């Protein structure tokens, strides 16, 4: 028997079976999203609150659509414009919302560990991490795995080369953890200014030169670069030099081989980490990631609410 999930904090807490279960469940939800009538009764009577303390368009929308297509009642709270502006603490906001008895609280916050912290105080509410600081972003990784599954079947033995601001990336950390559990290799590429301490202890391959890392890669995963972060922290002298050193253009992509896929968690900075011709090429699976994100979030909500595709009532 698989260990049931109570919360979804991160890949760190999941075993291979749980990861594969959610990816497969997500796969089964892809179809609903393509039907003319995009509605299933799975989560009828369930309440999902999206509590976003950081700006987000795609992740919040993706969770909202996922909940609504499964018939849950979905409430969106952008905390940057609500209670927290009045000085309410994170804990009070969490407890207040939990007192309204939602089934699931989906949380994004800039503080790493927010979900683990709140879960200590909130009973009877499943918590889903929609991105916490530079810690984890599990639904993004599940989304990526579903996208890769469409082309590869299994990621085992494949090489994913991830380029960019690894130091501040929750996507990177979650992927580095997933790679170990699912048996794929992560190559990470960045200048030392954008690598976190002792990153090699994840068991990944570390490169400073993108042109050395690309050959042999089965997928290239470009991370969004926050340009203000680059220059404010002296991580990089200019966007121009960053693009020249680490940007993915068509010429570079060709060195990776014909079957290499391109991924990006969005939103993209065209002309910074990724050139437009690459972003729009047939090798780009970036929009497929967005589509699969909805299916994965449906799977996560269904799994945490105890529904598994059918109407349980």
């Amino acid at each position, binding site marked *: 028997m698989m260990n049931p999930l109570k919360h979804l904090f991160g890949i760190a807490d999941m075993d291979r079976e749980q990861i594969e279960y959610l990816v497969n469940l997500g796969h089964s939800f892809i179809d609903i999203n393509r039907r003319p009538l995009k509605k299933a009764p799975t989560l009828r009577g369930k309440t999902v609150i999206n509590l976003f303390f950081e700006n987000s368009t795609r992740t919040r929308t993706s969770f909202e659509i996922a909940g609504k297509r499964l018939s849950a009642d979905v409430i969106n709270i952008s905390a940057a414009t609500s209670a927290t502006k009045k000085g309410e603490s994170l804990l009070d906001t969490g407890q207040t919302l939990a007192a309204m008895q939602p089934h699931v609280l989906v949380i994004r916050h800039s*503080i*790493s560990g*927010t979900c*683990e912290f709140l879960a200590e105080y909130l009973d009877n509410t499943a918590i889903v991490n929609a991105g916490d600081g*530079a810690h*984890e972003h599990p639904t993004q990784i599940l989304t990526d795995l579903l996208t890769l599954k469409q082309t590869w079947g299994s990621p085992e033995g494949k090489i994913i080369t991830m380029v960019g601001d690894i130091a501040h990336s*929750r996507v990177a*950390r979650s992927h580095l953890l997933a790679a170990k559990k699912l048996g794929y290799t992560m190559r990470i590429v960045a200048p030392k200014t954008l690598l976190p*301490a002792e990153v090699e202890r994840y068991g990944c391959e570390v490169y400073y030169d993108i042109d050395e890392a690309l050959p042999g890669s089965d997928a290239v995963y470009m991370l969004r670069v926050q340009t203000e972060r680059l220059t404010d922290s002296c991580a990089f002298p200019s966007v121009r030099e960053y693009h020249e050193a680490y940007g993915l253009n068509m010429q570079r992509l060709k060195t990776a081989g014909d079957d290499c896929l391109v991924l990006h968690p969005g939103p993209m900075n065209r002309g910074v980490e990724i050139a437009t011709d690459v972003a729009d090429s047939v090798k780009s699976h970036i929009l497929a990631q967005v589509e699969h994100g909805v299916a994965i979030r449906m799977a996560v909500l269904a799994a945490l609410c105890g529904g598994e595709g059918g109407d349980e009532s």
Partner: protein
Amino acid sequence: MSLLLIKNGHLIDPANGIDKKSDLWIEDGKVVAVGKHTGTADQTVDANGKIVCPGLIDMHVHLREPGEEWKEDIESGSRAAIAGGVTSMCCMPNTGPHIDHAGIARQIIERANQVGLCNVHPIGAVTKNLDGKELTEMRELSRAGCVAFSDDGMPIWHAGVMRKALEYSSSFGYMIIQHAEEPALTKGGCINEGWISTKLGVTGMPVEGEDSMIARDIMLTRRANAFYHVAHISSKGGVALVRAAQAEGLSVTTEAAPHHFALTEEEVLGFNVDAKMSPPLRTEEDRLAVIEGLRDGTIDVIATDHAPHHEDDKRCGLSCAAFGIVGLETMLPVSLGLVHSGILTMSDMIGKMTSKPAELLGLESGTLGLGSEADITIFDPESKWIVDRETLVSKGKNTPWHGKEMTGQVTHTIKAGRIVFENGTIHD
């Protein structure tokens, strides 16, 4: 005239080289005899199987008064101190207002005397408002009772200001205690930088932040021929720098906090806010280097950096939680771990909490010499107990040892001949 007899205890008084089973006699608040004495005791404490030593000195605490009395005050801090066997403590100046002028220092001493449970010696600020720019009136602060100077909590980061502070303070024989941290390297950090900070996705504070500041300060101390003390040393590199400075003959000393020799950064896993302090818990290699420094004498003193916080300041996620943990009530049993594991002798350990800090700061306490004030701690070195944050005497409940078993328990604390703490009960 009242005569108190502490009988059958194992007396350890490093200041006087005593380490033997012996009775101790106290008359009118003073030590009057070790061993035999003529007279009949009015009161007797049976210390059979226990250690009897000078009242402990904690030269690094934050009492939060004036200004943040909801976290701790002089009374609650004094009560926590005696519950931990501490009868003298030095309080850091990051109060509100800061201890940067004589009036505040006098007020703190007066309040501590009113409470009457524990000696409180203020540490004066090095710079006004702890802002690292202008020196305080150190002579005036010294006359008011300050025993050393520090901007603790804030490093004195500006090299020019630090140079002047070392030169000026040492002209009058004062010691500067540095919170050694280069803010340009540690800004925004909340735990040690390394594998744990990477895994948790939080900003780290690299060990070089501590090491580089100590290295710089030692150079300035050499030029100024000053008295320099590194607060709460936590790094392997820092210990090595201090050791080399001492070998050179410089007046460089340091202290270690129990958490830095008992715990590592692993404690933070799971986003444990009660394992967040500055300097942070570091690696096993650093922990072992701190232990070696204690063993070989590089580190003279054990001091807690007792930093009580209100739970509201801790319950908000690791990266925004306040820095610091309480330490007064766990100082002795955690340090006893070094004795139980054979690293320090009982006498050496006690010396680092009594005679050594007294010597560094010129305090009269820390000794059981005849005629000295009878501040005494009696503890059972083998007694086991479980730390429960709810029953801590301090207002601060922020301890990483909640639920952990301790070996060694204070049974009596005697202040100026009066039993102020006895088997868990405080006699106000």
